[in-house]
């Protein structure tokens, strides 16, 4: 039986939709995954030396123990959002001749091999190796490592128990904030309370039994709980949110564009992936802080243009590059209706325009870092409005990959193809190259004026450019329709 489960898992992995993606995306995702693992590994490997340097008068193990409570809470926090027990996958097993307890053990067991648990190992194994090399007692270090792994597993199983409750999330966030606050204002030293507890795991190897005990209890609770709710109207029931009707009457003033504008607004607010993108876009306003504050970048104009285009155009890039794939699920209906394609595109253009303007206003405080920064951002915003919006809409007609709107946005590469990478060349590369060249050959003022001029020119010919884009969409209609029908593209 166990062998069959393993086989099932093997096939699920190698036949999954994401595995069938094009080679380019596979390589990209593998690269990102490796990068993350490598970063954590390097952190683990150098942690000993970092702690030695930061707190020379205390043992690194002791210092680390003091912070582990935050590590555990943060882990729970991330797991809450990103890790779900994949109960849906076992639906086909339910009516077959397999005891329920075995099914439950199977899904709980396979969650042990989730990537989240790997993160702890990748960080602490190098750390333990360094400790051993430094002559720390092997028994203590290895059992400590085991204890850390067991704690990660505890977090794993605890997460499944609390995952559906917002109260639990409140407690996690509350604890994180309260602990930090108590510590910061010197009211109670949280580190002093939890430090010895975690340190004990190292000092007394036998203490590993404590987390092991907790793990057994948590597993048992999970087991009991799942066994009880493993019904179609229990854990296997898909969640449905209550629909809130909105009439968005204010969009009326946009005339013929109104129905599409309403559709786009609902599209963005009612689907996970698009909604997340709005928040991510807003967060990217802070991207500038990373670079403007560093001396190295202070005189790199290319970098400033990159930031300007990027910050004011982040929604343009995130949302725009997948037009019209957002509508892929019902593109056939749209194409059989009497829709003015032009209005459909104008609505998208208007949304992106608004986003560029909003992002521009949000970047105004960067004037703190000098007038030049402000001028570059302004020029970039104008360039985005005039040139990049039509460009990104034009390239949209090359999109042939379907997007399922209701899927999780995290690490979701659905709808991505080589087109998305190619778009970035003209959208980002062109203005940077142009600006840097003009700045180098002539002057800053001329470079700014050219970017602004191009933007205004593009905006002036917006009607003509949109006509071209509309023609292109009509021309590519059948190819797009065919592409959007492929479910696992």
């Amino acid at each position: 039986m166990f062998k069959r489960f393993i086989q099932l898992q093997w096939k699920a992995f190698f036949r999954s939709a994401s595995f069938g993606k094009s080679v380019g995306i596979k390589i990209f995702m593998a690269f990102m995954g490796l990068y993350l693992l490598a970063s954590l590994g390097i952190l683990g490997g150098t942690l000993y030396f970092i702690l030695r340097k930061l707190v020379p008068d205390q043992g690194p193990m002791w210092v680390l123990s003091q912070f582990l409570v935050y590590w555990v809470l943060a882990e729970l926090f991330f797991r809450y959002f990103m890790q779900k027990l994949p109960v849906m996958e076992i639906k086909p097993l339910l009516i077959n001749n397999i005891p329920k307890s075995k099914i439950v053990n199977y899904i709980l067991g396979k969650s042990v091999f989730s990537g989240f648990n790997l993160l702890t190992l990748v960080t602490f194994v190098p750390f333990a190796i360094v400790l051993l090399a430094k002559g720390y007692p092997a028994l203590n270090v290895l059992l400590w490592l085991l204890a850390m792994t067991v704690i990660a597993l505890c977090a794993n199983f605890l997460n499944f128990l609390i995952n559906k409750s917002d109260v639990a999330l409140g407690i996690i966030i509350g604890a994180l904030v309260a602990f930090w606050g108590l510590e910061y204002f010197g009211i109670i030293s949280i580190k002093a309370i939890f430090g010895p507890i975690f340190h004990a795991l190292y000092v007394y190897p036998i203490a590993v039994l404590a987390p092991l005990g907790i793990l057994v209890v948590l597993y048992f609770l999970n087991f009991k709980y799942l066994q009880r709710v493993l019904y179609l109207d229990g854990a296997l029931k898909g969640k449905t949110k209550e629909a809130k009707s909105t009439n968005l009457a204010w969009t009326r003033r946009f005339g013929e564009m109104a129905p599409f504008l309403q559709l786009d607004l609902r599209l963005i607010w009612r689907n996970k992936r698009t909604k997340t993108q709005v928040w991510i876009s807003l967060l990217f306003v802070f991207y500038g802080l990373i670079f403007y504050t560093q001396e190295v970048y202070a005189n790199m104009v290319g970098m400033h243009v990159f930031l300007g285009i990027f910050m004011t155009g982040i929604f343009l890039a995130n949302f725009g590059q997948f037009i019209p794939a957002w509508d892929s699920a019902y593109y056939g209906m749209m194409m059989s209706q009497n829709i003015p394609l032009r209005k459909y595109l104008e609505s998208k253009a208007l949304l992106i325009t608004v986003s560029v303007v909003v992002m521009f206003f949000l970047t105004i405080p960067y004037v703190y870092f000098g007038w030049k920064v402000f001028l570059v951002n302004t020029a970039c915003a104008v360039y985005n409005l005039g040139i990049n919006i039509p460009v990104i809409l034009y390239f949209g007609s090359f999109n042939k990959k379907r997007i399922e709107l209701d899927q999780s946005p995290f690490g979701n590469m659905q709808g991505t193809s080589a087109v998305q990478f190619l778009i970035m060349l003209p959208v980002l590369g062109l203005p940077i190259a142009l600006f840097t060249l003009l700045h180098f050959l002539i002057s800053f003022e001329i470079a700014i004026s050219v970017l602004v001029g191009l933007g205004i020119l593009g905006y002036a010919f917006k009607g003509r450019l949109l006509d071209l884009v509309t023609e292109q969409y009509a021309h590519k209609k059948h190819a797009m329709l065919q592409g959007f029908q492929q479910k696992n593209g």
Partner: protein
Amino acid sequence: MIAVHNLKKNYGPNTVLNIETLEIPKGQSFGLVGNNGAGKTTLFSLLLDLIPPTTGHIENNEVQVNKSEAWKPFTTAFIDETFLIGYLTPEEYFYFIGELRGRNKADVDALLSQFEDFFHGEILGQKKYLRDLSKGNQKKAGIVASFIGSPEVVILDEPFANLDPTTQIRLKSIIKELAATEGVTVLVSSHDLMHVTEVCERIVVLNKGEIVKDIETSAETLKELETFFGG
């Protein structure tokens, strides 16, 4: 109303549809039957210009569908759930479609009120998005949406599948009425021989992309079809 001329659709070396000629007069209720892969949905997709023909063409009210878009104002369709917009409530969807077909909210409400029976209290005012409705209810919403805007041609692919018996019976009378009293040309495909024979004046059987039977419906039609498919 609809005229097919030497229509052929190939995928690679396979011909999935090959119709030399087919005329559907205005106001006819037209039934299309055939096994899986016979080409029913392909024909409907060609009619809606969702796929391009390999050779030949279709005319809808003298408009060549793959050349001009002038057929869109008087033609509506419900092919499958992909014609629905999952993140809208049924009402929002109806108003959106209404808007595309030049009908305001009041017009759409007036039309919807005629279908209260058909909806059986499961569509309107449910506080649910279309994606969260059951398959049968999704179908109901899609079918009614295709009646918005006084179309002259209505195309329904497998409208009876997934519907409960009461709704099936109601849909049959709706379709009959559309064709008989309002002169709407209704094209219906189905796997259920009983339903099509009841609803349609004329039935065409497709087999491997070709028309093998073209019958005026009569009392013997069901028998004839059953013998054909039975062996």
